[in-house]
């Protein structure tokens, strides 16, 4: 009995460990960005003519690039983009998508049906390629990158919001709140939004990971920004010719930064999927013992 409890605790710790580790990685990147100007002697833009394409050494742990710039400083500096662009895109996506989904879920009818088909049509174009084409058309600028990613992610949030509101609707939640004399704005603000938060929040790390991948792809193809930047995808693009010549560090380190950052976000997303409120019903798998229905949400403020 006690042994069983201990084993369970250990499994629990190991599962949560992923999320903890992911947060540590992200915080680590943030701290590195903040500390770099103070701690690290080489600025990301400083070119040293005599130190072109030097391999990893004590002075330059990740080597130098084709312009004699310190790769470590540039990789750390690149984390700014990895934080800023996905965050800005997410803010735009939620601001655009959530009200749209709310309206479709509450209104239903032809508006809901039309929106569904329009989203379905747009989704036929691979979203990564569409985002890239949009930025290519609007011109190279981070603002355009954020706009394109945010626009396409808005679809995800609109769909999530719509499904949540619809589900609450179907369970008589909206009728109950309306019958209790709640005006529309109160219904939305007090009764609906808090109950959809879990789902929306759960989408955030996954969409951030997607945004990061899109940003890097744009940088790699060379359409994200006009000038050469420390954005990881652009760094890889610049380093490709050196990689083929054997100077691997110019590509591998920004690539690993991308991989580690993206993995941290995805691990966070998986962890929310597994332990978040929507999957809390795994107890229902017991043979012959009824559990809560899958995906049960406890409505707050229903009374």
């Amino acid at each position, binding site marked *: 009995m006690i042994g069983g409890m201990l084993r369970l605790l250990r499994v629990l710790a190991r599962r949560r460990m992923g999320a903890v580790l992911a947060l540590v990685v992200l915080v680590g990147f943030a701290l590195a960005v903040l500390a770099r100007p103070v701690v690290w002697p080489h600025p990301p833009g400083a070119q040293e003519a005599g130190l072109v394409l030097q391999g990893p050494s004590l002075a330059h742990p990740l080597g130098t690039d084709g312009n004699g710039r310190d790769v470590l400083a540039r990789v750390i500096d690149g984390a700014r983009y990895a934080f800023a662009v996905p965050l800005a895109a997410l803010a735009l996506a939620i601001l655009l998508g959530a009200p749209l989904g709310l309206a479709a879920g509450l209104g239903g009818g032809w508006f809901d049906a039309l929106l569904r088909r329009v989203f379905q049509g747009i989704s036929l174009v691979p979203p990564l390629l569409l985002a890239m084409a949009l930025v290519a058309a609007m011109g190279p600028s981070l603002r355009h990158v954020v706009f394109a990613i945010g626009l396409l992610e808005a679809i995800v949030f609109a769909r999530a919001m719509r499904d949540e509101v619809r589900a609450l609707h179907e369970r008589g939640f909206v009728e109950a709140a309306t019958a209790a004399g709640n005006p529309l704005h109160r219904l939305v603000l007090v009764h609906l939004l808090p109950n959809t938060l879990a789902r929306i929040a759960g989408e955030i790390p996954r969409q951030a990971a997607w945004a990061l991948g899109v940003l890097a792809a744009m940088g790699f193809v060379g359409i994200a920004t006009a000038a050469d930047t420390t954005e990881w995808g652009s760094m890889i693009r610049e380093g490709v010719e050196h990689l083929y010549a054997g100077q691997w560090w110019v590509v591998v380190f920004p690539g690993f930064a991308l991989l580690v950052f993206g993995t941290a976000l995805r691990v966070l997303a998986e962890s929310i999927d597994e332990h978040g409120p929507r999957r809390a019903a795994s*107890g229902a*798998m017991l043979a*012959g013992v009824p559990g809560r229905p899958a995906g049960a949400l406890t409505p707050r403020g229903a009374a």
Partner: protein
Amino acid sequence: MLLDVQGLRVDRIATGPQGEPVPEPALAGVNFCIVKGRILGLVGEHGAGKSLAASAILGLLRPSARLVGGRALFEGQDLLRMSEADLTRVRGARIGFVVQSGHATLDPNSRVGAQLVRAQSIHRPIVKAEAAWRAETIMSSMGIPEPRLRAQAWPHELTPGIVQRVVLGLALINEPQLLIADEPTAGLDITTQVQILDLLHLELRRRRIGGIIITRDLGVVAQYCDDIAVMYAGQVVEQGPVMQVFARPAHPFTRSMISDAPERLGIAGRQIVPPRMEPEQGCSYRPRCADATERCLVAPPLVGAGVHAARCHFARIAAA
């Protein structure tokens, strides 16, 4: 003694408020036994642990439940300590299993006849034509009209009554020594229920094999079973021959069940979830018992004489 279950304990792994797994005792020492050729009715409220006990005996617990202790001696061998490979040779061959009715129990991607053939091929080398013939024979002895035609059907094409006859045929086709039927008629209409139970009873008697019928319906027990085991909150609180238990129920829960059956048993859709059991809290039925006294704060022993026993301080059992 065909099957002797002693002190079966199973924990259910529930999900806590933060999503963390929490083990809760679901079976707290279940005892019952079956004699060859007799039929045992396992009754209790919804959630008492009847199906869980059956799953545990056959080693079919889901990952969300865990065996903690006990023994289940089947023809002298402990099923709970058997390797998965050995258990595989017992399941379906020496112990047949009939689960709750409905299409969900048959493999939706195979024809009915193929499933009956496959059930035979699992446990012995077969000749295809012979196995097909046996499949048709058992279908017709299960009262399925036009067995040759029905053997070609997919499960979803059959009525629930026919499906349950097929499931019964699957359980009997390898001539087991014991048949466990877990609410074999749940979800069927009344006429079909009676037909299936009559068929089940007839086959058990004809083959002279042991049977366990898990049910919430005392009427089923009275009509089709020789013995009864009453479960409450993860324990068997009373076991004995049907005639004796119905004539002189020794446990207050059994008494209350008999006095206002069938509504009590949740057949009317009422779910009564038993309280969680803590041994130090004494008798698990105490909160609902009209006759509870201070003695009930101590866990009651098994009081009994011969084949009739009950888990109550005040049980008075006359020797049969």
